[in-house]
């Protein structure tokens, strides 16, 4: 799972088959086991709910990256496919006779098929080009379908959305999915299956050609492949898995609304995918986890979460365009050279003061916000488990000093980190 798609290091099959098979399977098995035992550690429902939300976002982000990362197609309206898949799943839930005859676990397949069907229709005219034309068509279609959600009430249920009850499905080996934990296992299973299928897709001829078309559509045409059709297949496959994520959403929340279709959701998934890193298969997984935590957990702690999230995005784009995955993979070279330990001390010297400085800055922001918006006379605020008077000069002096000193130290030690980094990436020498 961790190997880079763009440079497939697979050795000739006959030489490495047995070894590489174990190697390929290992991350999957570990992930599956991990997901299976997780509920033993965290038993409360809200953690499960948040994990389910993460899983849904993971499937969606991976599906989105089939377009952006692997196919080079930038879509501004991909929420539509997840949404339509989800709405279809809700309608199936509400067809009591049919729904009672199928187990709930297969519902995402139906959702996927609907997402795929819509992708086939839209893809038939949008995949002629990549670039701006594709992006703007996706934007236009996204806006249109989102607008339809309040106009075509019969299917989208207006702004109230469509709701249903998952427990009316045929019991699956006696499980009726009444409890959150049961839904958790269903979602977890689907995450593994979908991720595995999407990974395998990237290893098939059409998946490989998606990369080729992304890099150089013209050259691909002169290899016998129609760039348009390659894009179309990627688009349709992506629509299927987006639909699956919509189906999982339907199972988890038992309601779909306009929010599942709108351009804000489409924008979010673009950010999630990019934050994680489009260059690697596992990038979107990290992006989905980090973003869900930001959105759900950080927003429990501060009203200003969006400012921090926005700053994080800007910083990522400006300094680590490879996303988190790129950041991690940057360390593969030093690791292979056996020089990773050279980086430990410089990292401690720079990153810890930097983190403290940034926290100090966040404290200043929070204090400004508190002074401006809290009730008159309510000067007490709690930050990082400390309660203090937000109007006192000393609190400001401390926060300011922490910020300045933290960032100052980071600035002073940054050059030696750079040196260490260069050293760690150079073969040979003292190691």
């Amino acid at each position, binding site marked *: 799972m961790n190997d880079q798609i763009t*440079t497939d290091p697979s050795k000739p099959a006959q030489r490495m088959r047995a070894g590489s098979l174990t190697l390929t399977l290992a991350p999957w098995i570990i992930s599956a086991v991990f997901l299976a035992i997780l509920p033993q550690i965290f038993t409360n429902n809200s953690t499960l709910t948040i994990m389910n939300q993460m899983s849904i976002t993971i499937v969606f982000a991976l599906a989105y990256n089939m377009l952006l990362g692997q196919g080079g197609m930038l879509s501004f309206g991909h929420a539509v496919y997840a949404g339509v898949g989800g709405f279809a799943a809700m309608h199936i839930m509400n067809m009591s006779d049919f729904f009672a005859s199928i187990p709930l676990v297969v519902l995402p397949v139906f959702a996927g098929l609907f997402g795929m069907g819509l992708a086939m229709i839209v893809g038939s005219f949008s995949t002629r080009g990549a670039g701006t034309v594709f992006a703007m068509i996706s934007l236009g279609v996204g806006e249109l379908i989102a607008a339809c959600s309040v106009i075509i009430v019969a299917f989208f249920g207006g702004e109230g959305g469509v709701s249903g009850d998952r427990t009316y499905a045929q019991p699956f080996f006696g499980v009726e999915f009444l409890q959150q934990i049961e839904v958790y296992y269903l979602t977890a299973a689907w995450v593994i299956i979908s991720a595995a299928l999407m990974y395998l897709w990237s290893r098939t001829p059409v998946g490989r050609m998606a990369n080729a078309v992304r890099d150089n559509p013209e050259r691909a045409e002169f290899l016998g492949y129609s760039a348009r059709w390659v894009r179309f297949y990627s688009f349709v496959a992506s629509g299927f898995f987006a639909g699956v994520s919509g189906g999982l959403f339907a199972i988890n929340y038992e309601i779909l609304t306009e929010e599942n279709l709108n351009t804000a959701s489409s924008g979010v998934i673009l950010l999630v995918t990019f934050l994680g890193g489009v260059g690697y298969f596992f990038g979107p997984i990290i992006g989905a986890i980090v973003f869900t935590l930001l959105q759900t957990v950080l927003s429990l702690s501060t009203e200003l979460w969006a400012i921090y999230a926005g700053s994080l995005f800007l910083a990522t784009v400006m300094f680590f365009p490879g996303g988190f995955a790129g950041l991690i993979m940057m360390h593969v070279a030093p690791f292979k050279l056996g020089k990773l330990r050279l980086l430990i001390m410089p990292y401690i010297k720079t990153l810890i003061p930097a983190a403290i400085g940034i926290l100090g800055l966040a404290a200043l922001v929070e204090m400004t916000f508190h002074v401006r918006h809290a009730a008159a006379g309510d000067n007490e605020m709690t930050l990082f488990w400390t309660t203090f008077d937000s109007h006192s000069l000393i609190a400001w002096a401390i926060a300011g000093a922490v910020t300045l000193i933290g960032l100052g130290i980071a600035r002073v030690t940054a050059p030696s980190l750079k040196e260490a980094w260069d050293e760690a990436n150079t073969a040979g020498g003292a190691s």
Partner: protein
Amino acid sequence: MSTPALELSGLKKSFGKAEIIRGIDLSIGKAERHAIIGPNGAGKSTLFNLITARFAPTAGTVKLHGENLAGLEPYQINRKGLSRSFQITNIFPKMSVFENVRCALLWSQGYKYSFWNLVSRSRLLTEGADAILEQINLLERRDLPAGTLSYAEQRALEIGITIAGGADVIMLDEPTAGMSNTETDYITDLILKVTAGKTLIMVEHDMGVVFGLADRISVLVYGEIIATGAPADVRADPKVQEAYLGAALEAEH
């Protein structure tokens, strides 16, 4: 006489008012090595692009093995056995060298748009790609991203991609442009080796390469072929000498 591999008749192309290709008739036989030469701006690359349907011709026809290619897309022409390289290096820079070649093999090995096969599971694909890498001497660079190769290596890779699909008509657009003498010799040998038994059509500026490789030469000047024939005949043709060759030839020999 058997059907020519490639036959152009009355081919014309205009961009707006400018007529770049002014009616070309040319027939290239099977297994012939044909070079197209001419001064800058004569329309050589445009001619290539017309043949491979990168541009649509204003008038005239292109026939491959007797079959009219009008209205076909580049990928359809490629499937009929015509493959080309580009003047500006045109590879998949982010993919590994091995994958570049493997992608070129996919269609000819019948994988089409399949999503039920795993590429790494096919011994034929892997062996085929490795065989081509060996031919173009890039086996050592197999797992590097193609974008990190040296210029000459990228040109070699481009030729490798062009021949990998097993096309019997190979078109190379200035394969040695911008190379040093040793690199040029290396590529010339390579071309000789990999195009054995195939029809080769190339545009080339380096007269050493042209006269070393070509069975026949066409001279393109201002969108028209002013001479076609064996290297010696073309060299002797006064029209050619007047238009283009004279100075260059004297400088070379």
